[in-house]
C-alpha cells in the first residue's frame, strides 16, 4: 500500500508552490488544475503570479484570456493563419468552449475555489510595477503582493513548479 494518496491524509506535510508566468488560456489552466488537484489531495498550495501570469489574476483580463496558434505547432493550424485578424479570437473561443464542456470552471471561479480550499495566491511586486498594476486591479481573493525574496521564504521545503 502506498504511504501517500490513500485518503488517510498522510500527505499533510507535502507542500507545492506553483509559479504562473504566462497569461494565455492554455498556460493558465495547467496551474489552476494542478493547484486545485493538490488541494483535493490535502497538499498545501501556494500560487505565485508573475509577468504575463498576472493576467490570470487581473480583474480586467482574467475572463478574457486567449490562446493563439502563432508559434504553437500543436494547435494543428498553419502558423501563417495566426497572423490573420480574428484567428486568435476564434482559437480562444474554441478552447474556452471545450473547457466548459469538460465542466472545468472559468478562471475566476477556479481561483475562488482554490482560495476557498485554503490555497494561497500571491502576485509579484516587480511585475506589477512593470505593468503599472495596483492591488486593486487584482482579483479580490489574492492574498498579498510579495517580492521574490519573500517567495523564496515561502517556498522553503516545497516542490516548485514553473509554468
Amino acid at each position, binding site marked *: 500500500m502506498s504511504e501517500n494518496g490513500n485518503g488517510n491524509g498522510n500527505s499533510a506535510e507535502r507542500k507545492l508552490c506553483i509559479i504562473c508566468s504566462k497569461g494565455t488560456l492554455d498556460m493558465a489552466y495547467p496551474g489552476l488544475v494542478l493547484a486545485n*488537484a493538490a488541494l483535493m489531495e490535502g497538499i498545501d498550495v501556494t500560487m505565485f503570479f508573475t509577468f504575463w501570469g498576472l493576467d490570470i489574476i487581473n480583474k480586467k483580463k482574467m475572463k478574457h484570456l486567449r490562446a493563439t496558434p502563432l508559434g504553437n505547432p500543436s494547435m494543428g493550424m498553419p502558423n501563417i493563419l495566426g497572423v490573420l485578424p480574428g484567428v486568435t479570437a476564434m482559437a480562444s473561443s474554441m478552447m474556452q468552449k471545450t473547457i466548459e464542456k469538460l465542466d472545468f470552471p472559468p478562471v475566476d471561479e477556479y481561483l475562488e475555489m482554490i482560495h476557498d480550499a485554503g490555497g494561497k495566491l500571491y502576485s509579484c511586486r516587480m511585475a506589477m510595477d512593470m505593468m503599472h498594476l495596483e492591488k486593486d486591479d487584482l482579483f479580490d481573493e489574492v492574498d498579498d503582493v510579495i517580492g521574490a525574496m519573500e517567495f523564496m521564504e515561502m517556498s522553503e521545503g516545497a516542490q516548485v513548479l514553473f509554468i
Partner: protein
Amino acid sequence: MTVQAIAGLNLEVDAEGFLTNPDDWNRDVAQAIAAELGIELTDRHWDVIEFVRKDFSETGTVPTLRRITKVGGVPTKEIYKLFPKGPAKKVAKIAGLSKPTGCI
C-alpha cells in the same frame, strides 16, 4: 483484493481501503471508516455523504467536489472544513465508493 472487518462486517476493499462494492455500504460502515480517518460525522457530513451516494446511484460516477458544491449545495470552504486534508478521497471513502479519478 483484501477483506477487512469494518463495523462488524467482513468487506472487500481495494489496496487503499476503498470498498469495492458500493452495496456493502451502510451508515455504520460510514461511521467506522470516518472514525479511522479521524472524522466524527455530524449532520452536515451526512448531507454530503447522502448527496454523493444519491448522485452516484443516478449517474454511476463518483461526483467531483465541484459537483458537490454546485449541485449538492455545500460550499468549497465547508467541504474542506468537514473533510480536511484531502476531501475528495475522504468523502468517496466514507461514502463507500471507489477512489475518484477526475481532475476537478
